[in-house]
């Protein structure tokens, strides 16, 4: 009896397992189909259906924008907790009115936007337009053909093309191209390079003690030395973001990379037209030596590289301990607000200074791309596909679309005085710090839907004037300074790896960079000695595969350039 039940149970288990296998197959089959679809569309040599050659005969019918008949497109919407989605926003109404397009949105909480995007795309249920995607995030969707190579369709996007050409962005676009030479994400475009991160200093203290405002990293050293005399036991410089912003900014001026910008260890050398492993070159040693000097002489807080932001800002800088700290144009405002509470208004002055020059000059990356939009291959099934591309071009890249999503409707939300955009009286724009104290006023973002990350990328994009219109005076000055003072370094040319190569590359570089980052900090804080331990560090990098990485990167680069 007992034996029989056991047999029975195992039979059932077997059957259910089979069932799972079958349904499993069913699942993959559907995705398989979509793969085939995608491929078909790809191999069918899309140019046939692209308007480049049949624009003339299509001009009168379906592909006209704005369309004669109202159309609906589906879109993924990233719901920012700071300005919760509201279907009554004027921005939806205006889009409908001007473009004759209704956006049917899938609202996804920002906290897990990426996860839901993955789910929808891999289940084949993705909406057509998927904004708020950073270049690089799209690569996972390409092998299955789930997103379209937008570069094949930019002919449909006059505004996009015009800006790419006028603002010299082709070079930047090269970096988001995949191995097949196409790009799959439409990035936000900027006319000029934005300066966001730099150092903030306590100008009042600098002035009081006659310390001149630094212009280079050497000046910074001298200034910190003078400041150290005020309080010999304290540190004049205690940094936030675990030093990542500072190292990242400083490194480019030593012709290396570090911090947030450390990357995978590869750096392009224009003279030899090849990639090198930058952490073992002498410039990197000089870079480390500089920061090691700051720590050794007690000018910089060794905790800078480990402490939480809260400690660095709330308990140190905002309490008057330390006179220099990394910041960006938004954070400096919130820092001042905190200091109004802690030190009292008028008792301090904090300013952002332009980026400092290093031994190799003042170098900035010439990146003019922002996060972007991907188009799911489901859009190809839409008979109005061409209208869709034109609509994307209009809303995200045309002057009219950008003004609408940034400032709204003239006479309703803003007025224009000369070149300046002014929020109408009785309204406020808290996210730009305009009229923020007025509790009763309606907010351009919260109540009208302007400055929405889904439409404006990360705030600064479009024409120079439009970019400036969104900046505080301080941010504008910083951006101007960056553009005037800096020499721009072109982004490294892309190394077009296929999936297997990328995997191998990452496997080596990840372990290697973990070690490099760890040693970088040890060299800086003095736990490792730059004189005695440097050779060991170089050798260890080589045993961990630095040479293989160089070889591999250069081979692939030569093959695909």
């Amino acid at each position, binding site marked *: 009896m007992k034996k029989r*039940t056991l047999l*029975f*149970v195992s039979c*059932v*288990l077997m059957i*259910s*397992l089979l069932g*799972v296998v079958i*349904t*499993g197959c*069913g*699942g993959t089959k*559907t*995705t398989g189909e979509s793969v085939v679809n995608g491929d078909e569309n790809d191999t069918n040599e899309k140019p046939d259906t692209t308007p480049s050659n049949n624009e003339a005969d299509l001009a009168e019918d379906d592909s006209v924008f704005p369309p004669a008949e109202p159309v609906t497109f589906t879109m993924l919407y990233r*719901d*920012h*907790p*700071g*300005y*919760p*989605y*509201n*279907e009554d926003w004027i921005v939806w109404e205006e889009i409908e009115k001007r473009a004759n397009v209704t956006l049917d949105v*899938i*609202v*996804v*909480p*920002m*906290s*897990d*936007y*990426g*996860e*839901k995007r993955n*789910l929808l795309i*891999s*289940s084949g*249920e993705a909406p057509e337009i998927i904004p708020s995607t*950073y270049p690089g995030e799209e690569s996972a969707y390409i092998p299955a053909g789930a997103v379209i190579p937008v570069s094949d369709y930019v002919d449909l996007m006059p505004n996009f093309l015009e800006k790419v050409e006028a603002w010299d962005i082709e070079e930047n676009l090269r970096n988001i191209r995949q191995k097949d030479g196409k790009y799959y994400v439409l990035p936000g475009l900027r006319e000029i390079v934005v300066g*966001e*991160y730099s150092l903030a200093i306590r100008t009042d203290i600098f002035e009081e003690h006659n310390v001149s405002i630094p212009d280079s990293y050497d000046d910074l050293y001298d200034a910190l030395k003078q400041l150290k005399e005020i309080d010999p036991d304290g540190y004049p410089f205690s940094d936030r*973001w675990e030093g*990542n*912003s500072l190292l990242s900014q400083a490194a480019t001026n030593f012709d290396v990379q570090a911090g*947030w910008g450390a990357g995978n260890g590869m750096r392009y050398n224009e003279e030899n037209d090849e990639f090198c492993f930058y952490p073992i070159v002498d410039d990197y040693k000089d870079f480390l030596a500089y920061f090691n000097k700051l720590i050794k002489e007690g000018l910089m807080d060794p905790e800078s590289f480990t402490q939480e932001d*809260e400690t660095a800002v*709330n*308990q140190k800088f*905002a309490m008057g301990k330390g006179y220099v700290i990394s910041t*960006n144009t*938004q*954070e400096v405002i*919130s820092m001042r607000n*905190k200091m109004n*509470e802690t030190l009292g208004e008028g008792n301090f002055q904090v300013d952002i200074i332009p980026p400092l020059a290093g031994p190799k000059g003042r170098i900035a990356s010439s990146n003019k791309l922002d996060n972007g939009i991907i188009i799911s291959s489901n859009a190809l099934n839409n008979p109005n596909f061409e209208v869709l591309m034109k609509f994307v071009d209009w809303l995200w890249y045309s002057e009219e679309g950008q003004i609408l999503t940034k400032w709204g409707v003239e006479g309703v939300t803003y007025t224009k005085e000369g070149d300046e955009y002014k929020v109408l009286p009785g309204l406020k724009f*808290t*996210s730009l710090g305009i009229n923020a104290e007025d509790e009763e006023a309606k907010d351009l973002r919260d109540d009208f839907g302007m400055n929405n*990350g889904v439409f404006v990328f*990360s*705030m600064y994009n479009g024409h120079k004037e439009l970019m400036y219109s969104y900046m505080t005076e301080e941010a504008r000055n910083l951006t101007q300074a960056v553009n005037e003072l800096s020499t721009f370094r072109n982004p490294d040319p892309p190394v077009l790896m296929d999936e297997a190569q990328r995997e191998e590359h990452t496997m080596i570089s990840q372990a290697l960079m973990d070690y490099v980052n760890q040693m970088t900090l040890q060299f800086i804080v003095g736990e490792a000695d730059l004189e005695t331990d440097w050779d060991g560090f170089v050798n260890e990098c080589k045993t961990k595969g630095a040479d293989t990485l160089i070889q591999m990167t250069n081979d692939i680069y030569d093959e695909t350039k």
Partner: protein
Amino acid sequence: MKSRLQNKISVFNIINTLIMIFVVIITLYPFLYLTSISMSSEKFVYSGDVTFYPRGFTLRTYKVLLKDTSFWISYKNTIMYTVLGTIISLTLTVLLAYPLSKRDLKGRGVFLGIILFTMFFSGGLIPTYLLVTRMLRMRNTIWAVVIPGALSTFNVLITRTFFEGLPDELEEAAAIDGMNTYGILLKIVLPLSKPILATMGLFYAVGMWNNWFGPFIYLDTKSLFPVSLYLRNIIAGAQSTREVTGGDVEGFGDIEATIKSASMIVSALPIIMVYPFIQKYFVKGVMIGSLKG
């Protein structure tokens, strides 16, 4: 017996009490901390001065929260999902567990096997998603929240074990008096099973109240979101973008620590308040020896 226990102050009692007080303190502290933050002014919150009691007392945060319609819509949804979901889950659990508790049920082992199987294997995320959206067409409806996962295998097994413990003679007597199976279940078994119903109800209700993943993947319209989505977004939303962009680009100062705490308090309170009312059933210890099946 009772008085002897009360009068006796043994070393065990003292240590036990001390340990329990300690446990109570560490359990309550987070709530206390959140409450004081939600009632303090930001100045003290930023400087980290708030600990046991509010500093710079203000109710401004709660006023702001009261005005936030999307919070209250989510709140309403959560209550709806919890009530409906608990009813569905309880009904299904009882209807499945009761027949399984009958030893003379034909193919009982098979059914148990199938049920146990789901405890260890699942179809995976994407097949499940496709099942719910394409075949059941439940995407973006309340049913997608309350139906998939309505039945918890674990809870079914506990309930079944409880039913097995009821004396067969009672049911036989009812049957002899002419009651049918449903009558027996409704009029005899269920009234005797209040402890297990209360416990399972609580398990399901808490699970449904906190349910985040189901609503997250199946719901596309903001007006259907439960409060768990709202909360996670304001707490984790800011951090996740910060990692990507490496800093503060879009003004995360928008949501203050005080608002976060206030919404956490307001949304946790109701489900906490359910406990005292069904606590008496827990004393009976449903879980003891329940998992021998």
